[in-house]
């Protein structure tokens, strides 16, 4: 099993509903985010091109944060989801420094926090909060090993890219272009 997410940059309007849904669902402390929206503008007026991406932890297969963690608090569970065990985290910041996507942050309680792909929801067969709430339905989540899952199907049909795969992290967030 390999969980992954696809983000349709052509459908995303950058409303930030995914951000608010995540903050509400996961009780993210005020002033912090586990996911965020990036707007990229390319070119000179009037020849402008825009890409909007909803970004979060890439749940990398070769995760530098897991490698750098001195205690094993950062770990990968079944399905490839990268998680942090708060009771084993010493808050040293090594994982935060090691993430090329800056997807982690120090929780005010001391441990390091990040996107969990809403694992508490997916074990119940539900979708992550951000996917569930997206008004343009631009987020796809599922099991890459299942050829009939929504995310596998859309990745076969459409062109996609990943963010800085050259960092060697094997990210599992796909951006449809």
């Amino acid at each position, binding site marked *: 099993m390999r969980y992954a997410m696809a983000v349709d940059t052509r459908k995303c309007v*950058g409303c*930030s509903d995914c*951000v608010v849904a995540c903050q509400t669902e996961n009780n993210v402390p005020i*002033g*912090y*985010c586990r996911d*965020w*929206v*990036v*707007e*990229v*503008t*390319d*070119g*000179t007026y009037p020849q402008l091109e825009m890409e*909007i991406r909803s970004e979060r932890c890439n749940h990398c297969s070769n995760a*530098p944060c897991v*490698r*750098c*963690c*001195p*205690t*094993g*608090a950062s770990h990968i569970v079944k399905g490839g989801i990268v998680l942090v065990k*708060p*009771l*084993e*985290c*010493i*808050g*040293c*910041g*090594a994982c*935060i*420094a*090691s*993430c*090329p996507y*800056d997807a*982690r*942050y*120090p929780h005010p*309680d*001391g*441990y390091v926090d990040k996107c969990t792909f809403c694992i508490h929801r997916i074990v119940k067969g539900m979708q992550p909060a951000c996917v569930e709430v997206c008004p343009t339905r631009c987020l796809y989540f599922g099991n890459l090993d299942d050829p009939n899952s929504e995310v596998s199907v859309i990745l076969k049909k459409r062109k996609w890219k990943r*963010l*800085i795969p*050259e*960092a*060697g992290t094997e990210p599992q967030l796909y951006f449809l272009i």
Partner: protein
Amino acid sequence: MNEEVIVSGRMNPLVDPHLNIWGWPIPLYLFLGGMAAGILFFAALYYLRGKEDEYRVTVRIAPLLTPMLLVVGLIALFIDLRHKLYFWQLYTNIKLQSPMSWGAWTLMVITPASFIWSALHIRDIIPSWNWKYKWLIWLEGFFNRNKKILAWVILIFALILGVYTGILLSAFNARPLWNTSILGPLFLASGLSAGAATIILLSKNPEEKEYFLKIDLVIIAVELFLIVHMFMGFLASTQVQIEAARMFLGGEYTAQFWIFAVILGMIIPALLEIMELRRFHIPSVISSLLVLFGSLMLRFIIVYAGQMSRWLY
């Protein structure tokens, strides 16, 4: 034009607008750890080479500083942790891929070893020292009998400590400035130089002083070579590393790095040391303190600048 903005207003403290997770405790610790590694390395090396009486400050006196350096460094590390009460989790695991885990275990060995080494030589500064309790006297005798083994342990773990302070940073490929294997040898050299400077500072034996002035000169030359080598490597590498190097070649860290770390911390002390060796009357306290200052600045600048360097996407 290419403009990237986070429109949802991400502002995670200590992460945005650029990484700022490691403040002053980390570079301070890297400096103290490197300096202690340098002092302990020379102490063990010259003890094993049978120079205990010839280089008394190197083998017996200077190491008395290292327990203090290491303890202050450990306190700095502890201050840096955000989940402080869970620090013991470091010692329930050995993670071979994590330099921080290596470092934690190395400190677990070298800190007690530095205390023992100091305890064996405490009578050099306090001649009337008395261990009072029988078991302490027995322990002193035990370690004196096995001093050679202790010296070997210190020699090896001092080297690991010195290199690891650099590898700790170079393991992060997310920060292109740190992601160079030169950082390990560079920080080791800088630590050895700080150790040699401490010995020069404390020693009153002209022969020992002259010997370590020569050693320090060689180490400074190696450091300068490694720095040039590091920038050559960056400039011949990918765009992100070119941008990292540009912070030092015209960018915002240019003045600090070249003035404080290189000119004041390496070139001027090297020139002063050469003049001293040519029998000019220059107080060696100036060159020694400059070397220590440069070593500290190198850590601060690399740690802070590294957090500003990043991948572009």
